[in-house]
């Protein structure tokens, strides 16, 4: 078997706060192959965004990577120096953030922000950098890119801004794009367009994609595989069809049941009882047990997540065909 | 917030305040300085303005010189043979007196005007706030200088000028908080009960405007003291007969070039200590009284 493009091993990202250490990411592991799309799903506060930022060493203090490895093409990015990381950022691994209103600098023109991204990695002239920027804008479906280059972010709509951000991410044809909820802040129709375009662009260029989201519906339409996170850990992972059809972890199941489109008309939406736990005060063992209908004494010990295939971290998983029968 | 603990707001305030060691030190220094100023007559080894106690032979003695009267001039003497250590106590008194009085007057005027603006609203509010804006767009020192140029010299005139400079800050502060409070239900209720206007303003609106006012007033006392010193240095402030710290420093200006540094240095240090102490207390009060502003 060939080496995966990205292998995250037992990643730990901690935040030192006055109230104690918050283990935002607590032993996350996953693989991502070339050209593959992995959906990383979880509620806000589950550590999914921090996981994405940890890969590129972009976690701001007081957060820090406390342990684990991030092997990108065999090279550990956790121990790599800032200079080495800089050479990878934007060139081999690009990132797209959630809020397109916030990701483009409001006081710099789109041209400035694109050209600097080109020049950060390639020694080309300004004219060449500008030409590439213009082409990139055209590729993400922005009309009259020549004129739009001179514009400032506030002159674009939200969807257009996110396209600009995607164009910037694609400038160097990276091997991997980390997308942190890039469609959450957009209208549903625009969301669908962007999803489609990103998928096409990645397939065309062979770029792998880590799509961080809270929205299982988005992932099911886009991803090859999915990993579900809860309280800093992956609780279930597997090929998208397997997980959607037969979720084994009670949390994954709860998430799926609360997606409106999957419920039948007239049947009330089910939601997961209880609240997202405080990351400072997690129960011993399985973090989901206070909200779980199946929890018992066994859950005081954290179950391991087996490697490969469809795997789950639970002592009392649902049956493989349970969901099918219910629906 | 839990109601389990029985604690008066004042006590909680004191405890929150005490959590900053720097602020506590500032407060302690401030209290000491105030006591020294009030009891200057008792604490100072010499009454620097009683000519009988001065010995012209002791003029411009460097710090640490033993004086004719049998005690040491720890901070040296000025050209009149005045003990600087004593002169500083008396100077502090004038400086604090001017600063605090001016602040109190400005506070009274500013609160009245600001409250009126908030309560009356409409054109009255517009006119008052426009005036406040225009005044605040000019530097305090410029306004004070012009006023003193018109009024002439004197402690009372300096106080008037400083109050005239400051009132606008309070007016704006009070109006801001009063406007927020005015929209709240308890004021509506008071109005429905047809309570007299002055009662609503004094008993209901004013107490809620107090926290920001206290913060602004603390910082403004420091400003007033610094401004008074500056005006006195420029020769348009207090008269020579009632020298403040600024006046003492100004009198040291002439001796500075000949190397007699102490006449200007020590009163300046005293001034600095007072201002820093007030600012530290003010900063902490702001943090404690208004957690939203702390960052």
């Amino acid at each position, binding site marked *: 078997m060939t080496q995966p493009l990205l292998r995250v091993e037992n990643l730990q990202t901690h935040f030192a706060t006055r109230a104690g250490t918050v283990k935002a990411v607590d032993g996350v592991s996953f693989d991502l192959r070339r050209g593959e799309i992995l959906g990383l799903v979880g509620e806000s506060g589950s550590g999914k965004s921090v996981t994405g930022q940890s890969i590129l060493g972009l976690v701001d203090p007081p957060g820090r990577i406390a342990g684990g490895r991030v092997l990108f093409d065999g090279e550990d990015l956790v121990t790599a120096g800032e200079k080495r990381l800089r050479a990878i950022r934007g060139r081999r691994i690009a990132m797209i953030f959630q809020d397109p209103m916030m990701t483009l600098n409001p*006081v710099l023109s789109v041209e400035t922000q694109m050209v600097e991204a080109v020049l950060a990695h390639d020694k080309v002239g300004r004219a060449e950098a500008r030409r590439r920027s213009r082409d990139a804008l055209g590729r993400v479906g922005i009309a009259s890119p020549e004129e739009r280059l001179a514009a400032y972010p506030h002159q674009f709509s939200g969807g257009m801004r996110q396209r600009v*951000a995607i164009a910037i991410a694609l400038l160097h044809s990276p091997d991997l794009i980390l997308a942190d909820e890039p469609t959450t802040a957009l209208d549903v129709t625009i969301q669908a367009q962007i999803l489609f375009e990103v998928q096409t662009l990645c397939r065309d260029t062979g770029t792998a994609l880590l799509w961080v989201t809270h929205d299982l519906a988005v992932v099911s339409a886009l991803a090859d595989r999915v990993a579900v996170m809860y309280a800093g850990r992956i609780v279930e992972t597997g090929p998208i069809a397997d997980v959607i059809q037969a979720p084994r972890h009670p949390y994954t199941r709860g998430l799926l049941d609360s997606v409106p489109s999957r419920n039948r008309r007239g049947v009330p939406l089910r939601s997961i009882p209880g609240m997202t736990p405080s990351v400072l005060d997690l129960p011993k063992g399985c973090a989901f047990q206070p909200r779980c209908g199946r929890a018992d004494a066994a859950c005081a010990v954290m179950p391991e997540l087996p490697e490969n295939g469809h795997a789950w971290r639970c002592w009392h998983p649902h049956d493989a065909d349970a969901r099918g029968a219910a629906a | 917030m839990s109601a389990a603990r029985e604690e008066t707001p004042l006590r909680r305030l004191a405890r929150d305040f005490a959590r900053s060691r720097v602020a506590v030190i500032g407060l302690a220094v401030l209290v000491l300085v105030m006591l020294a100023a009030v009891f200057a007559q008792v604490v100072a080894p010499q009454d620097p303005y009683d000519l009988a106690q001065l010995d012209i032979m002791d003029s411009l003695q460097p710090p640490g010189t033993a004086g004719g009267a049998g005690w040491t001039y720890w901070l040296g003497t000025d050209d009149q043979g005045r003990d600087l250590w004593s002169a500083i106590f008396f100077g502090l008194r004038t400086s604090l007196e001017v600063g605090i009085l001016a602040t109190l007057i400005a506070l009274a005027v500013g609160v009245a005007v600001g409250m009126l603006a908030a309560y009356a609203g409409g054109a009255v509010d517009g006119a008052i706030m426009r005036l406040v804006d225009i005044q605040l767009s000019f530097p305090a020192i410029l306004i004070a200088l012009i006023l003193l140029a018109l009024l002439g010299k004197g402690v009372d005139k300096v106080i008037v000028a400083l109050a005239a400079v400051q009132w606008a800050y309070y007016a704006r502060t009070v109006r801001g908080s009063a406007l927020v409070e005015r929209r709240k239900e308890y004021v509506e209720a008071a109005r429905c009960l047809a309570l007299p206007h002055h009662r609503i303003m004094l008993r209901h609106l004013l107490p809620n405007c107090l926290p920001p006012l206290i913060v602004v007033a603390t910082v403004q006392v420091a400003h007033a003291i610094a401004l008074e010193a500056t005006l006195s240095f420029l020769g348009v402030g207090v008269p020579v007969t009632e020298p403040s710290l600024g006046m003492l420093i100004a009198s040291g200006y002439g001796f*500075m070039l000949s190397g007699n540094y102490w006449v200007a240095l020590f009163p300046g240090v005293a001034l600095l200590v007072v201002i820093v102490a007030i600012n530290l207390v003010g900063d902490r009060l702001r943090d404690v009284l208004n957690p939203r502003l702390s960052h």
Partner: protein
Amino acid sequence: MIVFILRRLTQSAVVIAAMAVLVFTGIFAIGNPIDVLISPEADEVERAAAIARLGLDQPMHVQFARFVESAVGGDLGTSFVHGVPALGLVLQRFPATLELALAAMLLAVLLGIPLGLWAGLKPDSVAGRVIMTGSILGFSLPTFWVGMMLIMAFAVQLGWLPAGGRGQTASLFGVQWSFLTRDGLAHLILPAINLATFKLSLVIRLARAGTREVALQDYVKFARAKGLSPARVVGVHILKNIMIPVVTVLGLELGSVIAFSVVTESVFAWPGMGKLLIESILQLDRPVVVAYLLLTVLLFVVINLVVDLIYSMLDPRIRLGGGRA
């Protein structure tokens, strides 16, 4: 853009008109105009003549019209002490003050922004704390005392720099400037530092607060994710954003620096219009005081206008906000 400028010009005109009324009221209604406009040394006959000549026996609105008329014509009376037109006297001193004020602003910006950036990027470092403590001290220190201490240290004790005056000047555009000669520059250093101290503290605070806010924004993280060097992230992405509040406040503060140069000029015997103002106040040379006041008001209004224009150039959201949707 033209609409914007026109609107601002109208606002400025209103402020100037308001100030003219205030100054007029200050002199003619509150104070005794005879004292203000006629030399205290004049005898009875001279006084009577002057009262008639100045129209002080006329009704208030006629006086106001005359005041405005002569003020617009640049006639603000004759200095009692120097015997020359007051406005000309103040204008003649203006370049010295402007030079000092600009030097101080330059110092405040050149030192304050890097220091504030540093303190904002590393708020918990030793350097960050030292910078912030320094800025608190800078706020608390009275300007005139700092000036005296500077003279004491660098002029009297160390003898490195001159204690006062403008030194040798050279002509540029028909005006004398100190910064063009070596000697003049040496004379400029201490007063400029003195005048800059307070503004430096202000710039540090603004830059630090701005940096702390901007550094947390997603666009900074996105800039880093593009693989940009720290120098570019800080020097372009963060700096350009914090420049907006800094420039606005600084522009508005230029007026206050000119006003505060009264103190520094007095300490360093710098022959600017601030020193002239103090001398005139002490010598009861009131026409000069009035001339200084009106000129300063005008200056303030112009500065506010220019700041607004610069501000709109720095921030594309404002520059283009009115034009396109």
